[in-house]
């Protein structure tokens, strides 16, 4: 990643890619679309994040609950607010036909960043009896996007005349098991075509640092941009719940206790996030942060500002 001028050799040319390629510490936000047919909250949070983040993720039926489509929310951001979206795509709800078709439309509309995910199992959501699709997995999805971009071909091999050229993202979860496999899996994602990584939210900094040691040992930080996922958690009860009740999450005692001891847990949540941002900035191989303030989107601008991440670079 070092040494060459990546700005002259962009894969998709998105703002996020430019920020990362130019060596800036990236900062992205996230908005969970509502369970209703209106843009009210999206508009509100988007205005708050304007100029404060490099791109905004839109989750794709997060936790398997029906929500306004991520592409619909992403287009709203693009057209109404002139901001850059990152489209999340999960493998749970669509087969390779539907996914590729959605991506053609997304690209034609101007969406440039895509984050490829397996998706939470349908058992978690509000339609647990539905049939999960999982026609392709997240690594296969990454390879489909890469094939479209670099070879101009669909998964089937047929030519795509005007092929979408996305900046391809993937998730990495340093907190899931088997721990040793997580680095192998990350390497597979890079080999499949991932350009950037957003990690599962880090609520256990030590484990993340340990994970980054392994990442550096394999040299993966030089093959992909790594954005550390951070989540401000506003109540100690929530933190404890995530410690035991959410599969694939680790929450350190330190994290829980800081919230529990605080007089004002909301303020402390902001402080912890800022501390973690600063720690991430010191870790070799971390190229940015992705702030997921689930159900607390309005706090993102405050965090970004207090963490000293402003002004954001423009191109």
């Amino acid at each position: 990643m070092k040494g060459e001028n990546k700005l002259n050799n962009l894969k998709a040319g998105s703002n996020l890619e430019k920020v990362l390629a130019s060596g800036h510490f990236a900062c992205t936000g996230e908005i969970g679309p509502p369970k209703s047919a209106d843009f009210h909250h999206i508009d509100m949070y988007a205005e708050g994040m304007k100029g404060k983040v490099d791109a905004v993720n839109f989750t794709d039926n997060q936790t398997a609950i029906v929500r306004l489509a991520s592409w619909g929310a992403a287009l709203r951001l693009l057209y109404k607010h002139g901001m850059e979206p990152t489209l999340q795509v999960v493998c749970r709800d669509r087969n390779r036909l539907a996914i590729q078709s959605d991506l053609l439309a997304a690209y034609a509309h101007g969406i440039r960043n895509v984050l490829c995910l397996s998706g939470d199992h349908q058992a978690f959501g509000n339609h647990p009896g539905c049939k999960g699709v999982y026609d392709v997995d997240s690594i296969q999805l990454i390879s489909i996007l890469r094939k479209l971009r670099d070879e101009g071909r669909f998964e089937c091999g047929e030519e795509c005349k005007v092929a979408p050229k996305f900046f391809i993202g993937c998730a990495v979860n340093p907190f899931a098991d088997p721990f040793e496999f997580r680095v192998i899996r990350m390497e597979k994602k890079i080999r499949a075509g991932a350009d950037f990584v957003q990690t599962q939210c880090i609520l256990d900094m030590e484990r993340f640092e340990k994970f980054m040691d392994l990442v550096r040992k394999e040299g993966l930080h030089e093959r992909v941009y790594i954005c550390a996922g951070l989540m401000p958690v506003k109540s100690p009860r929530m933190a404890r719940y995530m410690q035991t009740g959410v599969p694939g999450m680790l929450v350190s005692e330190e994290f829980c206790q800081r919230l529990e001891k605080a007089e004002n847990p909301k303020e402390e949540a902001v402080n912890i996030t800022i501390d973690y941002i600063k720690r991430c900035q010191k870790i070799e191989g971390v190229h940015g942060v992705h702030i997921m303030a689930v159900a607390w989107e309005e706090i993102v601008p405050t965090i970004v500002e207090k963490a000293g991440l402003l002004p954001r670079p423009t191109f």
Partner: protein
Amino acid sequence: MIVAERKPIEKILEMVAPYKKILVAGCYGCVTVCLAGGEKEVGILASQIRMARSKEDNPIEVLEQTVERQCDAEYLEKFRDNIAQVEAVVSLACGIGIQYLAEKYPKTPVFPGVNTLFLGANIDVGKWEERCMACGDCVLDKTGGICPIARCSKHLLNGPCGGSQYGKCEVSKDVPCGWQLIYDRLKELGQLDKLKEIIPPKNWLRAKGPRTLVREDLTLER
């Protein structure tokens, strides 16, 4: 084997409500082994139906017969005499047997007495687990002999999702993560390198509709 479970008696009584004389048809194959539709279960169901109906003052005559396999035309022939006497049949074979029986006796309604669940193994007394989904292109060589299609809740082919923790699947603490099992097994075999291979999108082999197998080496003999 094919694993099935008996339907609740209420459902079966609903199906046979209009009839006065029926046959309960069992199978000595998989459903005998998984204790859902063998000779013994045929007897139990038949008496349950008789008792329920006589309680309602609406008696029903129930014949009982079990054959070697209901998925085989030769054995289905054995039902002919009994089926000629009844108005309907409740089959306790798997979904395949039930359909094949119905196909061979088109004039008699045939009802399912079991729910056919999955292809699995009897792993403990009274406990069966899914092991294969008949995908048609087996990958067990790459995954340490553990099926990622049947045993990973998302049928993932390239490793565990982010929900795998403490050996369990994100779907439930009672479900082992299929990919943790694969990882452990490959580690034991000294074959962790196999996990580095990127397995491309799978051909689910549905392009020809319902799947068929034709073996010319055998058909030519006829």
